[in-house]
C-alpha cells in the first residue's frame, strides 16, 4: 500500500474546498440577496451537476476539456493549461461537481440573517464587502461548516468524475478513491479494506476535530 493516493486525495479535497469557498460565497450572496428574475434559474443550474451520474459528467468534462475542442484547445494553446489527465483538471471538475454542496447551505445561511444586522452595518459606513466579512459570515458559521464538511467529504469520496478525467495516473491523478476501487475490482478485498479504513479514519479524525472545535469542546485544552 502506498500513501501517495491518500496524500493526493487530501490535497485535492483541501484545494477544492478552499476554491469552492471562494467561489461560493459571492455566488450564494448573490442568490440570497438579488432580486433578479433569473435567480431561480441560476439556483436550479447550480444543482444540476448532481443529477448526472458522475462518470457521465466526467465524460462531458472530458469532451469539453479535450484539446480537440475549441475550449480545451484554447486553454491548451493560449494559457498552456491542460485539464485532462492533470491535477488542475481534477480540481476544476470537482469544483463544478461539488458546487451545490457549498452554495446551497451558505445561501440558506445568508437568508436566515436578520436584515437589520446588514442595515446597521451599512449605516456605520461599512461597505458591502466589510459587512460580508465582519457581520454576515461570522453569523452563519453553522451553514459555512455544513458547506465545508459536505464539500470536503464529497471530494474525498469523489470517484466517477475523477476516474474519467484523471486517467488514474499514479502520483498525479490516482486518488485514494480510485485506488480503493482498483483493489475492489482486482478482488483484493484485504487491501481495499485497509485503504478504506485508513481513509475513513483520517477523514473521521479531521471532521471530528472540526466539530469539536466548533462545539467549543476543545476549549478547555487551550486554556
Amino acid at each position, binding site marked *: 500500500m502506498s500513501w501517495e493516493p491518500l496524500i493526493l486525495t487530501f490535497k485535492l479535497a483541501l484545494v477544492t474546498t478552499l476554491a469552492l469557498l471562494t467561489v461560493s460565497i459571492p455566488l450564494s450572496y448573490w442568490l440570497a440577496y438579488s432580486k433578479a428574475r433569473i435567480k431561480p434559474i441560476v439556483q436550479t443550474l447550480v444543482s444540476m451537476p448532481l443529477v448526472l451520474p458522475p462518470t457521465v459528467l466526467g465524460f462531458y468534462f472530458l469532451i469539453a476539456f479535450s484539446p480537440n475542442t475549441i475550449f480545451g484547445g484554447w486553454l491548451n494553446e493560449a494559457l498552456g493549461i491542460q485539464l485532462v489527465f492533470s491535477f488542475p483538471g481534477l480540481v476544476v471538475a470537482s469544483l463544478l461537481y461539488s458546487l451545490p454542496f457549498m452554495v446551497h447551505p451558505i445561501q440558506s445561511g445568508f437568508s436566515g440573517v436578520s436584515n437589520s444586522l446588514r442595515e446597521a452595518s451599512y449605516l456605520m459606513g461599512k461597505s458591502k464587502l466589510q459587512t460580508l466579512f465582519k457581520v454576515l459570515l461570522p453569523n452563519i458559521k453553522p451553514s459555512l461548516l455544513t458547506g465545508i464538511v459536505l464539500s470536503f467529504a464529497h471530494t474525498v469520496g469523489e470517484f466517477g468524475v475523477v*476516474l474519467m478525467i484523471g*486517467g*488514474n495516473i499514479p502520483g498525479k491523478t490516482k486518488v485514494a478513491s480510485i485506488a480503493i476501487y*482498483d483493489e475492489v475490482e482486482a478482488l483484493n478485498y484485504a487491501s481495499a479494506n485497509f485503504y478504506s479504513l485508513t481513509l475513513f479514519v483520517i477523514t473521521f479524525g479531521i471532521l471530528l476535530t472540526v466539530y469539536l472545535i466548533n462545539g467549543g469542546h476543545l476549549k478547555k485544552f487551550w486554556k
Partner: protein
Amino acid sequence: RGNSDKLTIAVSSNMQYSIEEIAAKYTEHTGIACDLVVGSSGKLTAQIMEGAPFDVFLSADMKYPQMLYQKGHAKAAPKIYALGKLVLFASNKEIVPKLEFLKNDSIAHIALANPKTAPYGRAAMEVLEHNGLVYSVKDKLVYGESVSQTNQFMSTGAAQMGFTAKSTLIGTPLSQQGHWIALDTNSYTPIQQGIVMLEDDTAQDRASLSFLEFIFTEEAQEILKKYGYSTHE
C-alpha cells in the same frame, strides 16, 4: 425472478457489441429472451459472489471465472469461448498507428485499461515491455477502468493513441474516427475469455446450459470471429 424463459447474462465490457448479436440469434433459435448486464469483470464477479441473479457469466479472462468456480459459485469449470485480440488505435486520422510512434512528442497521452484489473490492460503492458517502450512512454500512460473507458479517452481525443480490444472496434463508431493496427499476438499472453454457468436455482439450468452450448456452435463462433476474436482452435 424465476421467469424460466429469460436468461440474465453478465458480460464483460469488451464483449458488449458481439454479445448483442449472439444473444439475438440465441433468442431467435430458442425463444428464450436475454437480459444483458454489461460491466467490468471484477465488479460482476463481486456481485456474483454476493448472490447476483445472473445465470451465465462471460468474463474477459479466466481468472475471475476460475475463482467463482473454486468458491463454489459456478456449476462447472469455466471454458474458454474466445481469445481476445489487442490493437493499437490512433484517434487522429492523420496518424497511422505504429508502436514506435508512441514515443513521438505529439502524443501526449496513451490510453490503456488498468493492467491491474483488466486483461486487455495487462496485455498492453506486456506489449510495451516486449518492445522496450515502457520506460520512454511511462509518463504518457493514462489508465481507463476498463476497455470501454479507454475507448472513451480516445474517442474524445483526450488521449491521442491507446490500446484496446479489437472487438470494440469492429463496426463501431470509434473505428470511423481513426486507424488501428492489430498487435503481434506473440508479444502478449493470449487473452483467454472464459464462460461459466452460475450456481443457481434449477429452473434456469436448462436455459443456461443451452446458452453455454450455443456459444460454442459454429454460428456463434462466426459472430465472435467477425468481431475480431479468434476462436478456440
